[in-house]
């Protein structure tokens, strides 16, 4: 009898832990939507401003801190990127800036960021950006991913010799690390992180959520 009472109390306690835990998980669902207000000054004097697409005059500027090896960043680029480019950037509402934030420990992140910088030399950063993210599974597990980046360079019509020279030289390494360090100084701790004008959003966002922020900052005129 006493054991039955003990078991009943145990199950009540266990259920209470489960309910509290489930509640905490439920509340955590919306945490990515909480914006932080930040200093909108994005780049130190003389620093690299990032890779931009969209007009200077756009009412909303979105800075994305991303790591090419980050799975969530790839997911964002594949699922949300095309909608952003077509419906927000091409319509002149948003200027999108990509900033390098290779995560330490991601062994292939730096070569990927170098490949993107070398493609930018030939005016093809965004084409390489898409190649790198859309083919994420092909180069991330590689011991030497450079050959994949050379394939991507050929696929988007880059001058192969010039791209190879650039990639081999690693001449953008310091710039990439400086951009990353600047992000760290500004409080970036994970990828992807978005700065929408003066609001910082951490973590993956879907198109509708991002569009809602743009609409709030720059309402569409009727």
């Amino acid at each position, binding site marked *: 009898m006493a054991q039955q009472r003990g078991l009943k109390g145990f199950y009540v306690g266990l259920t209470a832990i489960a309910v509290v835990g489930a509640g905490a998980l439920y509340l*955590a669902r919306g945490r990515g939507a909480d914006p932080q207000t930040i200093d909108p000054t994005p780049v130190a004097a003389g620093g690299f401003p990032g890779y931009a697409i969209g007009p200077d005059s756009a009412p909303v500027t979105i800075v994305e801190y991303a790591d090419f090896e980050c799975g969530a960043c790839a997911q964002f680029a594949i699922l949300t990127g095309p909608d952003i480019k077509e419906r927000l950037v091409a319509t002149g509402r948003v200027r999108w800036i990509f900033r390098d934030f290779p995560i330490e420990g991601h062994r292939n992140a730096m070569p990927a960021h170098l490949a993107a910088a070398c493609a930018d030399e030939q005016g093809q950063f965004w084409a390489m950006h898409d190649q790198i993210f859309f083919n994420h599974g092909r180069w991330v597990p590689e011991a030497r991913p450079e050959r994949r980046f050379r394939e991507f360079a050929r696929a988007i019509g880059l001058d192969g010799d010039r791209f190879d020279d650039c990639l081999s030289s690693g001449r953008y390494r310091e710039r990439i690390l400086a951009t990353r360090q600047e992000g760290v100084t500004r409080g970036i701790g994970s990828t992807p992180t978005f700065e929408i004008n003066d609001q910082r959003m951490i973590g993956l966002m879907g198109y509708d959520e991002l569009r809602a922020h743009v609409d709030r900052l720059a309402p569409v005129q009727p």
Partner: protein
Amino acid sequence: MVGAALALAGLLVSLYLWLWKIGALGVLACGDGGCETVQLSEYAMLFGLPVAFYGVVGYAAMLAVCLTGLHGRPTERAWPTAALLALSGGGVAFSAYLTYLEAAVIHAWCRWCIVSAVIVTLVFGTAVVGFRRKAWKRGA
């Protein structure tokens, strides 16, 4: 009972990490970004599934075994203790490997992963104590 409560706590922690990994949660409450670094590393996936998912399955199995062991006569409870010992022993070994990766390969600490490692070690400890008690009772 202690094992069941710990397994439930471990289940909630691994569920939290898994839900974040599949994009169901916005931000990991981690403090310094170490959790994201670890969770976004190549080592956060195993055989095409998030490592945290194996934690969810493992802790759910431990919880089920613990609850099964609370019912029936003592002689019928011997196998759940042995099963808990095996499951939590595997969990300790796997957690040790993951902790090594954090320290030596990824160079970042995921606090929730460490919490999970501590929990599974405690579950293993309760399983060892339970197993020895049963062995002692059988011997007496």
